[in-house]
Every structure is written in C-alpha cells, then in structure tokens.
C-alpha cells in the first residue's frame, strides 16, 4: 500500500481533531488559490451569450419614431424580474450607441416602468406572470424577449431556447413583432426559427 493511502487511513482512524485539520487544510487550499489563476477567456456562460444577443437585437430591429419621446432619450434595455445577466449585460453595452442614442440597462422592479423600454427581457422568475406582462406591454413598441418555454407562442416576440448541444438559439414570432409596430431585419428572420402565436 502506497504512502498516501496509509496517511489517509491514519488521518481517518484517529478521532475528530485530524478531520478538522484536514478540512482546515482543504479550506486553506481553496481560499488562497489565486482568482486570476482560474479565470480564463475560454469560459462562456449561457447568459453571456444571451446578453450579446440582446444587444445585437437593437441593431436588427427597427423601432417606430414614436418609441422615443425626445432626441437625447437613451436606448433602454430592461430586465424584468430576477436578473440572470449580472454584470455581463452592463459590460456588453458599455460605450455602445444605437442610432446615435446611448444604450442603458435598467432593472425594473415593476411592470409599470416597462413602457419606456425599447427591449424588455422577461426573466424566468416571471414565468407565472407571463401573460399579464405581455398583455400589458402589447400597445407599446417594445421588443419582448424571454427564455421561458412558450414565450413566443404566448405573445412574446423573441424566445431564446437552448439546442441539445448547449448553444443558444432563438425563435421569432413575426406577427407579434409586426403588431408591436417593429420591423425585424430579413437577416434576422433567416436565422431565427419562425413561430406563430397561438
């Protein structure tokens, strides 16, 4: 039997003190592993991809002029419900402009505040209130985006879904987009899965 196994056995045979020491050792080991060491640029998370999509949509849809009340009004991307993006969405829109407008991200606590948004991302946490939300924003030129199941079939415009191999894809309901007064670019419609609302 090799040395490390013997060591391990001795450690376990004796009473609680060695076990505590072992745990302490583990803690120390992990606690002082440098952060930067672990962070690599290969790391891609689901919501990082979604954040980039969300920003890209700003350029692939056209909003009617009524969407903006004044010239300097920023282009608002809003998140309703628990924010799954964290800092990533803020990093994506940093220093960006859409048609000469500054892009801002707003986490909105109530539905009432959504009417000033251009893009409204409805978080999974709002699953139960999906219909209420979509009915509420229907009269406004707001691009509704969600990643819950049946978002687009139930009156949402863009729905993210994940492929079997963990890629982020999206479907679009063109009829809903049209009714909202928005225009989707043909490039976008080419890649998207087209869905008809029920």
């Amino acid at each position, binding site marked *: 039997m090799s040395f490390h196994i013997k060591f*391990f056995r001795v450690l*376990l045979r004796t009473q609680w003190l060695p*076990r505590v020491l072992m745990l302490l050792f583990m803690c120390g080991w992990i606690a002082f592993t440098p952060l930067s060491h672990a962070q690599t640029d290969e790391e891609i*998370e689901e919501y990082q991809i979604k954040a980039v999509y969300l920003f*890209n949509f700003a350029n692939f849809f056209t909003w009617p002029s009524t969407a903006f009340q004044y010239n300097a009004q920023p282009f608002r991307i809003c998140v309703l419900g628990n924010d799954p993006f964290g*800092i990533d969405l803020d990093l994506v829109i940093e220093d960006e402009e859409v048609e000469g407008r500054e892009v801002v991200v707003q986490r909105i606590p109530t539905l009432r505040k959504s009417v000033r948004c251009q893009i409204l991302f409805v978080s999974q946490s709002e699953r139960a209130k999906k219909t209420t939300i979509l009915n509420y924003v229907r009269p406004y030129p707001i691009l509704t985006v969600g990643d819950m199941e049946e978002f687009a079939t139930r009156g949402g415009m863009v729905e993210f879904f994940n492929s079997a191999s*963990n890629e982020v894809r999206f479907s679009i309901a063109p009829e809903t987009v049209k009714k909202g007064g928005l225009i989707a670019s043909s490039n976008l419609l080419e890649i998207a899965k087209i869905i008809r609302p029920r």
Partner: protein
Amino acid sequence: MVAKIMIKKNRIHFLFRVFQLAILSVLLIIAPLTQAAVEGPRDKAALKKRAALLKKLKKLNLKQLSTIQFFNPEATSASRTKRKLMDTASALFVISSEDIRRAGITSIPEALRLAPGVQVARVYSSRWAISARGLNGLMSSKLLVMIDGRTIYSGFNSTVYWDVQNTLIEDIDRIEVIRGPGASLWGANAVNGIINIITKKSKQTQGNLITTYLGTTEEQAVVGIQHGGKIGSHGHYRVYGKFSEHDSFVDSQGQDANDNWQMKRGGFRTDLDISKLDNVTIQGDIYDGFKKQTYLHPGKIPEVRNAHTYISGFNLLARWQRNLTNGDIIMQSYYDLTERQWTVFQNETRSIYDIDFQHRWQPNVKQEFIWGLGFRHLYDENKDEFMPITRTIPEKREDNLFSAFVQAEFTLLSNSPISSKKIAQSEEKLLRLTLGSKFEHNDYTGFEYQPTIRLLWTPNAQHSAWAAISRAVRVPSRMDQDNEFHGWFGKDLRFTLLGNHDFESEIMIAHELGYRFNLSNRFLFDANIFYNEYDRARTLFEQVDFQLSPPPPTVITTYGNNMTGEVYGLELLAQWQTTKNWRLVATYNYVDIHLHHLPISKDIGGEGEEGDTPHHQASLRSLLTLPNNWEFDTALYYVDNLPNQKSPNYTRFDVRLGWQPRKDLSLSLGARNMFDNQHPEYGIGASGNTDIPFETQRTFYLQANYRF
C-alpha cells in the same frame, strides 16, 4: 436490551457529530471571510477579462453566435430541483445520453460503469451486483434506484433486479448518479447512493425510430421501434416496443453457462400542458420475459441447469406539476407490479402503490424551502412451488410507509460582482447552508429520521467546495425478517437461514467533502473524499443452533445487526475537452472497507464482505469526432481484484466506430473487452454460493438507428 443500548450509543454519537459539524461550519465561514477581507471588491483584472470575452462575442455575427457552446450540466435529483453542477453540495455525476451512445452501451446497469465511485460487476448474463461507495455484492442493499421518480429496488431484499429495468436506451435523457446518502430528501435506502434514470420528454422523441443491435456472444439482438406524435396543440406522446435476446455467459472452461435470457417490453409516455401553469405526465411500461440460470450446489441437492425464471410486470405513473410564482408543486403517484416465477426459488408477486406530494417555495433569492409528504403501500405474495429451498412466512404481507421531509437552504454570505447598486439583485451566493431531514414511519421498525447538513461554498465561478454530514438508514426488507433459506456450507454441512423479526435498520453516518474546479467550459475536475460509519450493519449468518439429527448436521442461523464498519474512499473525475472534436474523461476511485463484528456476534464470515468491493477502479474514455460524421471512441476500464470472491482484477477495453451517413441514419461498429477472451467480474463460484458466477467474453457488435 442490546438494541436499546446501541440506539442510545448512536444518539450520543449523532449529537457528537452535530457538535463536530458546528465547529466545521465556523471554520468554513472564517475561511472565505479572510479572502473577502484580503481582496475587497471583486478583482478588477477578472472583470477586464470578462469584458474582453464579451467583446469577442460581440464581434461574431448572429450565425456564429448561435454556434457558441456554453457549459454546465444540470441535475434534478441532487436537490429535487434543478441546479447547476457547480452549485450542488453532493457527489453528483451526470451520465448523458451522448455518453451512453458513444460508449456503445445498450443497457442501464452497464451504463453505470461510466460514473466514478460506482461498483458494477456482472455476475452472470442477467445479473449484476451494483453499489456505490463500497459494500457491493449479490445482496448489496443500500442503493436507491429510480426511473422517472419511480422506485425500483425490490421490497424483498432491497436489491435491484436489473434484468427488468430497461427502456429504449435512446430514450434515456440522462442518468444522475449521486454517491453518498440522499436520504433526507429521498428516504429509506438512499444510503450509499442514488441513481435517478430520467427519460426524455415525449416532445424530444417525436417521429419514428427503428433501432437494431446485433452482436456476438452475450448480447445477440436488440430491436426497438418507437413512434412519437402530438396530442392536440398542447401535448406530445410516444409509444415504444423493444425486444432483446441475450445469450449465455461461459464458465472458465469456455462451456456454455445456460443463463441466456429474453425480454419483451413496451411502453408509452405522454406529456400534456393542460394550462399555462400545469404540466401532466402519464407514462407506463409493460414487460415479459424469461431468464435461465444454473445452480450448482455444493451439498446434496442435485445441480439445476436450465432453470427458467419467468418475469413479467407493469407500471403506471402520473405526475402533475404546477408552477407557482415562487416555486412549484409536484404531485406524483404510481403503481408498479412485478412477478417472478422461479423454478428453484419461490414465486413472488409484489406491488407498490405510491403517492407523493412536494412543494418548493422560494420566498426570495436567499432562501429556499422544499417539503413533502408521501405514502407507500407495499404488497407481496411468496409461494414456494416444488423445491424446498426457501419460503417466506407469512406468505402474504402488506406494509404501509408514511413519510415527510423538509429541507431549507439559506444563503449565509453573498457578494456582489462589483459594488454597484444597479446589480444588487444579481449578487452571487457565496456560502450556502442546507438543512433537512426525512421522517418516516414503516411497519418494520417504526419511526426513522434521516437528517443532513450541507455547506456549499462557491467563491467564484471556477471553484466550489462542499461538506456534508448525513444520517441514513436501510430499513429491513421482507427477506431480513420473514425469509427462510436452506443451503449448504460445503458438502456435509447444511444451513438453515431464518429471518429475524428483531432485525433493525442499518444505520450510516456519512461525512463527505467535495471540491469542483471548472477551469473553463473545457475542463472540469471533481474530487470527493468520504468517511462512512455503519452501525447495526447486517450480519448474514448469526448462528443460533446446531442440529446433528436428522443428518446431515445443520447450522441454524439468522440475520443480525451485529456489525459496525467504516468505509472511506476517494473519488476523482476529470473531463477535458481538448479540442472541439476530442473529449477525454478520466475517473479514479479508491475504497477501503473495514467491518467489525460486535463481541456478541456469532456470525460466520460477515467481515469477508470487505473483500467483495474492489479497492481501485479507474477508467479513461476518449471521444473523438472525425470529419464527415465519423466518430471514434475508446474506453478503458480497470477494476481491482475481489479477494473474497477470488476474482482477479481485469482491464476492459472497448472501441467504437460510429458513422452517420445521412441525417436519418446512424451506424456503429464496435468491440467490447478487446484485451482478453473472457474474464469473470464477480466470483469464481466460491462454495456456499448457490449462484455460480460466469465469465463475460469479447464481443463485436453492429448497431443501426433509423429515424423517419
């Protein structure tokens, strides 16, 4: 009396453990605090890198963006709710459908070889000995196995009849394997591990599928056919049928072991969205088949060859899930009936009716509660036919099991990625505490409690560490209390093994530590160490009497709770996506078992079970995707020897070549066990075994799947 003392001793032991954990918790809290103090707000360099990565992603066009893969296998069984692997405070491993397909595996028990820390030994053609974290054997009884939430371990002896646990292998979405106890949520028998087999939703299996498998040696032919369709606009269904024909293993001389078997099965699954918030799943299976066995008795009973066992059964399950604003409700009920008509042993019929309710409530980001209630009715009937080897008294028995569980999870510490008000909502959970317990009342031992305390620490997206202490019990089964078995120890000594009405639950206190390191979506490392203490462990042959007449001399024995034990081990897993087309998976585990008879024990041989589990197991798999839809996969499995079964170590090497010439057709050609002609995996027929284990051979196979 003895039992009482033992219970008291155990209680003190448990209190001691709680105290111990309190100290550990404090230590775990201090460690990250020191780190937080040193670093202050999140590292600026890390943030810069994040921004750089996002910048790269922004440069891609939409088409390219849709081909970027993200990484994170999800699992439901670890905490009965969905959670990412890095956030799971238990030793979880997920066997994906892709893993199964590319390992060229066609049955559920064989698929479990892919998980680290699981012992899989194929005893003969239709029988497997499977356990996690040791104590494997023909009677290994401490595993909870479920298919889509339906418990499938046998109420007779707490083992799993793997021969009837099957479905179309293509329909398996994933197999979640948790080593260690999960009793606080799942209840009795979730002692050494939980295996949760999850089939695909019927939405994922639309269209038609014909699958065929042809092979040499044991697995001769498998034919499956499936149709999936829509029910109205809100529902999907599938129906399948499967036939499998298995040939015999061979003995060490290459002679046919006469243990061939055949199974026919069919089933369906429907998933309906009855409203915006409610989903209903109804599924069921029906099966019928036979298996053959050879019994070589060391004693005076003549050997039995070609002994047929007819097996049949069906099950039906309904599940209703309602999504609430802050959680969900799941109501599930099933009925399972299974029958075995043995020629040698008694005929058994057993059924389970089960109903479960579960409510998950997440009032805010920092807290989550799950609680549930369950009721199970077990019925069985055991009739001996003509061979007086075994009988069960009473022949029929009905048992009721009531259970309740509650689990709470609290975020003790959290940190924001940067100190900014606007992202306060998205703060990361740094330290999470899970407290829970299952309370059960069963007709064998009465009230049982099974608590757990778990601490998960996720300092950042790359590292996570967890520690847990849990108590789990294996409640007695029918065999432990009511069965009578006649056998032979060698040629001239008979034994009668009687059930013991005073048999109590076996208890385990588990201590676990885990660490995961997710370098990027390309590299995952998972390490676990555990230390399990068993109390009142089952001894199989407690001697109670010795009779000289009538000859031959007979030892009367019974089951006892007269062993204690410690099992400890180490489990390692590394998954490495070296390039987009090449994935490597390596596992290693070490287990050491120490069993001790209590001074009062008169058991013959119980400590020998130590030697039924391999000390070392290792595997290395390579999954290589080649151009033009070719795949080349290899797998190497090493299993250490089993001293108690006198079976040598073995190395198994599998190769598979896959090709998908058209979108609707996939072919594979493969070989298993390339290195040797044949080897035993469990036992060489040690005396006293009524089942003689045989050997598995080198196999070549061809597989074709056609979808239309």
